């Protein structure tokens, strides 16, 4: 029997329809397609795909279950390692991880591992997720700071081991970047809520409105808890530092997305938080966050949505799929160009942007070729809103308030592979340790830290 060389496509909302709503773009596999896709898997003995998975899912095993039509078993296999599969099945860069390692790539496209994970997660959620039997309580208390992907993963794993876990969240909702950052059309909030519900049912308690470093300090937590995991993420927006950046109408990607996603500004005035959009919106940057902003702008009614990026499409850090979705929806890209100033009207509201053409020079420390401005190549464009999406630094609230915590030069918390910081009993992982990265890497860090915390506590006895 010959193997199908291409992945089964996932049906999607049509671009001209979907830019009018916030509903999810890809619609997921049907049972039949999922089984057919699963049958493509060669069931390699060396499981290269699993080696490429930051949360160590036994990928051939769950795919085999799907091929055999045993979806419940497939869910068990995934959940044994991954507490948030409906999330990672949507936002993981599979192409660089599991699917990047797939043997089928030698003859064609890899198995659609991400799509299959999503299929199983959705199947299980619709049915009602099975809650594993509570293990015997270890009578040890762990505090987790931040209810984002790293914190939730760490909390879930520790609860499964029998620890009593409390998560402290600064905002009024769980999920961190899954809630405030990634838009509804890429990751529906109902799905995040369901995944968080699963974590809660494992016995994890989430306390909202607690800003650790302000409402309560890490030192206080260390007295009350046996260990602490910090997963506060990369919340601090970076700026271009060009004239006009504080004009009305210039948003950080964080403010733009938080207003829309967490505060539901797209439902203003039904929800109280507003956003201003205008006709022409420019997003600066070409990562996943930038794609999210540019696509959100269209859905909020912008007539034209632009992305301006100082390198070329090749260097764009966003996933190819996200760039593709943005292009399909009509986002216009200016590559090799960078803003040099914003202009405003007499009310201090932005109305234009000057930008300069760039060319690629020698590679910089990141290995990418450094963009260099071409003298006297400035142009001006009219815009109503600008969104700066050029990256985030670690949130400084905790690093600033813990004595003796070793920090990196970007204010990140320094840890070893497994999340141990310079303070015994204090662990950290995700963007607060690595700087801005992906959801799945944060989940992987949370997972490793949970194991390290378990070791630490058992070694203290």
């Amino acid at each position, binding site marked *: 029997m010959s193997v199908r060389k291409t992945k089964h496509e996932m049906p999607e909302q049509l671009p001209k329809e979907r830019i009018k709503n916030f509903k999810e773009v890809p619609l997921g596999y049907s049972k039949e397609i999922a089984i057919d896709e699963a049958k493509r898997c060669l069931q390699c003995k060396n499981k290269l795909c699993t080696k490429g998975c930051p949360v160590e899912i036994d990928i051939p095993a769950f795919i085999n279950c799907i091929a055999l039509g045993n979806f419940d078993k497939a869910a068990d296999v995934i959940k044994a390692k991954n507490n948030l599969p409906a999330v990672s099945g949507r936002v993981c860069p599979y192409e660089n991880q599991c699917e990047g390692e797939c043997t089928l790539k030698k003859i064609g496209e890899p198995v659609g591992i991400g799509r299959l994970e999503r299929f199983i997660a959705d199947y299980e959620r619709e049915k009602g997720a099975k809650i594993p039997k509570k293990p015997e309580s270890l009578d040890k208390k762990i505090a987790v700071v931040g209810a984002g992907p790293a914190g939730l993963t760490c909390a879930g794993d520790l609860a499964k081991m029998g620890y009593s876990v409390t998560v402290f969240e*600064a*905002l*009024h909702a769980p999920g961190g970047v899954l809630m*405030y950052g990634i838009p509804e059309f890429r990751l529906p909030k109902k799905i995040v809520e369901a995944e968080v519900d699963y974590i809660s049912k494992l016995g994890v308690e989430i306390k*909202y*409105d*607690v*800003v650790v470093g*302000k*409402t*309560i300090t890490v030192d206080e937590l260390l007295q009350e808890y046996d260990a602490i995991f910090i997963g506060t993420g990369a*919340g*601090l*927006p970076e*700026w271009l*530092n060009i004239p006009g*950046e*504080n*004009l*009305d109408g210039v*948003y*950080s990607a*964080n*403010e733009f997305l*938080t*207003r829309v996603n967490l*505060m*539901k500004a797209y439902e*203003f*005035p*039904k*929800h*109280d*938080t*507003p956003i*201003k959009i205008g006709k022409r919106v420019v997003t600066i940057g070409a990562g996943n966050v930038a794609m999210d902003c540019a696509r959100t702008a269209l859905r909020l009614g912008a007539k034209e949505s632009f992305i301006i990026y100082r390198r070329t499409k090749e260097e764009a850090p966003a996933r190819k799929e996200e760039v593709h979705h943005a292009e399909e929806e009509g986002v216009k890209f200016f590559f090799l160009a960078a803003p040099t100033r914003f202009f405003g009207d007499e*009310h*201090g*509201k932005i109305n234009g942007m000057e930008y300069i053409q760039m060319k690629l020079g020698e590679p910089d420390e990141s290995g990418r070729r450094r963009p260099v401005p071409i003298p006297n190549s400035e142009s001006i464009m009219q815009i109503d809103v600008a969104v700066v999406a050029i990256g985030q630094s670690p*949130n*400084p*609230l905790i690093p600033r308030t813990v004595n003796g915590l070793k920090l990196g030069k970007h204010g990140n918390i320094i840890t070893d592979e497994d999340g141990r910081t310079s303070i015994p009993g204090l662990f950290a992982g995700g963007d607060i340790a690595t700087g801005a990265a992906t959801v799945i890497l944060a989940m992987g860090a949370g997972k490793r830290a949970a194991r390290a915390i378990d070791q630490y506590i058992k070694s203290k006895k």
Partner: protein
Amino acid sequence: MYQILEKKVLSETVKLMKIKAPLVAKKAQPGQFIILRIDEKGERIPLTIADFDRKKGTITIIFLEVGKTTKQLGALNVGDSLENFVGPLGLPSEVKKYGTVVCVGGGVGIAPLYPIVKALKEAGNYVISILGAKTESLLLLEKEIHGSSDEFYIATDDGSKGHKGFVSDVLQQVINKHKVDMVMAIGPIIMMKVVSDLTRKYNIKTLVSLNPIMVDGTGMCGGCRVSVDGKTKFACVDGPEFDGHKVDYENLMLRNRRFMHEEGEACRLADVQ
């Protein structure tokens, strides 16, 4: 949920509430603020802490009903609860012995000034307070601040009480009479600007407390950014107090008007309902 334990109507548009929030009260210090959200559809608004009681676990807020959320808040009563109430946020006031300090409060900005006045007095300063309002009936916390001050003055726009005119006129007289070591000013942006312009001439250290639009209040969104000495600062984590001589007030005024149109729309719709 955070219950409203006490409510006082200070004037037609200014209300005081004591909110049960023991964790916030335990840590609150003068100069810090909280963020609240009334219900699931509500927006997050920052309010500077007007007082706190660690024993009773309460935070006092005093607010002017200017927009949809503050009007809705003002309509709530004792026994009602707020969905979210988080804090204390921002850096506390730098309370120490300066010598002679002048505390200038304008309008609803008098409320957050009160805990600072008390703390500066306790730290051994000679405290001169100047309160300003449009008219006598809008003056807040007159007795309380008077009680914690060594000298006390009032200025009203219409002359209904104290000096007829601006707080800056009184401040000028105080500067003429005393060697002032520090000025703390909280009130409308324009008042803080005028006060800072005056004290700059005399090279008197001046602190102002800014109240830009915020969303998360933890340094994440940058909506509250202000230009201080040409550098972008976040009022939520770097402030809310800044060197009054270095703040770009023009930009702050513009940024605080960002959603005026939407605010109006939300208020109209709320009135219709």
